[in-house]
């Protein structure tokens, strides 16, 4: 515990802390932004499949609703991640540091996105562990 306290103190006092966290915040934004076209392409592709197989307008619309149900949780998770990453970046830009709450929200939002993303969309690794 003593060594841990020294480690935490070191991080708190390190001149590279802001730099490291800014790099991490950028990495999260880039990974999520890289995911955007892939996610939207998958969404478009599923909608096109609905149109191709629909035998009527009603059938097509019903299929669209099923696609929306599959993707809405992912779109919501990306919105939540954007809010959490904004808060993290704002805090870093304003104070040069991050509170545990802000980091925890960011981790939770990232892990939710990784959890709900469709199987066809590979969520890149940003070094955040979601296993507990």
């Amino acid at each position: 515990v003593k060594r841990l306290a020294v480690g935490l103190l070191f991080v708190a006092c390190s001149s590279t802390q802001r730099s490291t966290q800014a790099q991490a915040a950028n990495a999260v934004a880039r990974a999520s932004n890289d995911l955007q076209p892939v996610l939207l392409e998958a969404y478009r592709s599923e909608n096109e499949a609905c149109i191709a197989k629909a035998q009527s307008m009603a059938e097509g619309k019903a299929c669209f609703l099923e696609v929306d149900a599959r993707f809405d949780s992912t779109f919501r998770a990306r919105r939540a991640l954007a809010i959490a990453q904004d808060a993290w970046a704002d805090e870093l830009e304003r104070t040069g540091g991050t509170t545990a709450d802000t980091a925890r929200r960011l981790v939770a939002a990232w892990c939710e996105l990784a959890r709900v993303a469709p199987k066809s969309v590979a969520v890149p690794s940003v070094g955040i562990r979601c296993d507990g």
Partner: protein
Amino acid sequence: MVEEVDMEENIYAMLSQIAETARTIVPDGPVQQALSVMAVALDAGAALARAGSHDPAGQIERILSDDAMIARARDDRESALRAKFEEDE
């Protein structure tokens, strides 16, 4: 420059190890919360240091909104569906 990156990597490796050890022995609480800050920054920071990334000058990048693109995709699908069945008629 190379020396600087090596030194940073050593620091990341050392602190990652502390974070990893602490993660397994410290129950949920303030220390665990502080570790979550470290874990995010260290893991991503170490990967970036290895890739030779540098401190972003100026503003930190933000996540783009999907809303406009989702709205466009929904408009497009409605038009395409309508076109398919209007053609059939």
